[in-house]
């Protein structure tokens, strides 16, 4: 059996959960086994009936599980593994998925391969996985010696496919939790103030790097963004570390992962740790005064020049076109 751990977000299955189901069905087919999905949390029961194309849905629905309570969830997943003896357990490689599976792996003293992107099945058995290293700039092929095999799936690595297969049986799992499982528990959620278009939702992102030179200079990127549809401003780690922009604007391995239609990189050298955050952009346009800058090897469009001249000229031309 392949056990697929699904994630509930706002009373629905998360996007990453559908990808996990797709991967689980694929693994089940290649290893000639079945898929059981595990849904944990308040409201899980109601969602179970919406699932198709898996053999069984295991449900741990409990009033107390009204948010992600890491150790409680880990206890439930660990006991499901003990009861059902799956060969492979796969969960989303999201923040909660990785946190949860790390706790499960620690409790069961098993290996865990996080953020997998590919699976190698030979003679009906999972032999190796490919997982993301350096935030996705490198890939690592790994053999997993412990059993059952615990995995998390890199989000967006495998496109989700819906299945109209048969309706599964639904089985309620007993929820036996101790006080200690509630030791780490969210006590409050402070809603974020919505301020403009977020980096991850924007259709155009304009990024500024060391070449901007100052916090002041970012004003022209803000102005450029205001002249475009659905645009937001981002930055490199040099810009955030210098205090020119808040860290929430940082794009890259330890910042935001963006996927706009167009990314305009201004005064950015194109370090891999930055580029891994914008590699899913449809097009990348780089403005850099150094023709040898590595970003020109990682971009679709290049402008060789001083951004302090190019950006103001672009802003002026856009204003002229718009008649403002």
């Amino acid at each position, binding site marked *: 059996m392949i056990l697929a751990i699904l994630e509930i977000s706002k009373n629905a299955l998360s996007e990453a959960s559908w990808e996990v189901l797709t991967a689980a069905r694929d693994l089940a087919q290649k290893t000639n086994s079945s898929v059981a999905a595990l849904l944990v949390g308040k409201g899980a029961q109601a969602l179970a009936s919406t699932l198709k194309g898996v053999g069984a849905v295991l449900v741990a629905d409990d009033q107390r599980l009204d948010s992600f309570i890491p150790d409680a969830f880990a206890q439930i997943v660990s006991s499901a593994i003990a009861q059902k003896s799956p060969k492979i357990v796969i969960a989303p490689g999201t*923040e909660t998925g990785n946190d949860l599976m790390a*706790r499960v*792996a*620690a*409790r069961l*003293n098993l*290996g*865990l391969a*996080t*953020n997998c992107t590919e699976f190698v099945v030979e003679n009906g058995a999972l032999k*190796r996985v490919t997982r*993301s*290293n*350096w935030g*996705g*700039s*490198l*890939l*690592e*092929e*790994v*053999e*997993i*010696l412990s059993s059952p095999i615990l995995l998390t799936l890199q989000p967006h690595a495998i496109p989700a496919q819906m299945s109209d297969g048969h309706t599964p049986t639904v089985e309620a799992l007993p929820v036996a939790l101790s006080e200690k499982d509630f*030791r*780490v*528990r969210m*006590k*409050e*959620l*402070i809603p974020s103030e919505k301020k403009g278009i977020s980096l991850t939702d924007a*259709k155009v992102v304009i990024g500024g790097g060391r070449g901007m030179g100052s916090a002041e200079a970012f004003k022209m990127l803000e102005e450029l963004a205001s002249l475009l*549809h659905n*645009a937001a401003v981002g930055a490199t780690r040099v810009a955030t*570390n210098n205090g020119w922009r808040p*860290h*929430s604007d940082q794009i890259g391995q*330890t910042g935001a992962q963006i996927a706009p*239609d*167009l990314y305009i990189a201004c005064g950015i*050298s194109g*370090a*891999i740790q930055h580029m891994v955050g914008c590699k899913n952009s449809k097009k990348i*346009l780089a403005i850099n005064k150094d023709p040898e800058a*590595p970003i*020109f090897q*990682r*971009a*679709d*469009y*290049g*402008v*060789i*020049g001083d951004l302090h*001249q*190019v950006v103001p*000229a672009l802003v002026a*031309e*856009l204003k002229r*076109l718009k008649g403002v």
Partner: protein
Amino acid sequence: MKVLVCIKRVPDTGGGFKLTADNMRVDTTNVGFAVSPHEECAVEEAIRIVEKHGGSSTVLTLGPQAAGEQLREAIAKGITGAMLLEADDYEFWDPAATAQAIAEAVKPLGFDILLFGNESADACNYQVGVRVAHLLDLPCVTGIKALEIQNNRAIAKRETKDGWEVYEVPLPAVFTVKEGINTPRHPSLRGIMSAKKVPIEQRKVTRPAPQLVRKALKKPQEGRQLEILGQGVDAVPKIIEKLREVGAI
């Protein structure tokens, strides 16, 4: 407060990775070394906790002798002690093995706060901190971007799409830290000089039987074809054209 912070030495390769001939490692010839930005912030947080509440801070790494460079960098910024678990093959340690060795080394020392990066820069396993917490039977909050200590309790915050999640746990506790929790300071010249004299407590550690075994590293496909739009302001009309193509204007 007695604070521990764990860091990992990794190659600092902004330009791109070169792999060794056997594809098992990143070629580090002529490459500098760094630690993950998350860990730099964990170091800064440890220094700030001790500045505010008193006590001591210890930086720990499992790695080669050369990782003394990263330990001394942390000391130069204000960390008070250092520990090296020496293992030349540290890149091949799986997260369970690393966690086991760290837990064994720190268990007798009774830290109040144990800080890790949310994930290491190279391996990105997302689990050493969580595993150490389990081995020491301590509560663990992952991916935090704010930490406050009050009366032997910690208030930690995680930032999500929906807002700030607030957690409160009793100490001792483990936290895995994300960049953005603070802005790390640079070491002072005096700090750099005196860091040279701080002794590093070292012991050799050997790798237990692995659960995960690296078979190879490989580079993902990169496929973009560059079109030069022009030099300087002459490129503006072409840029406008591209903006139109994506519907930005």
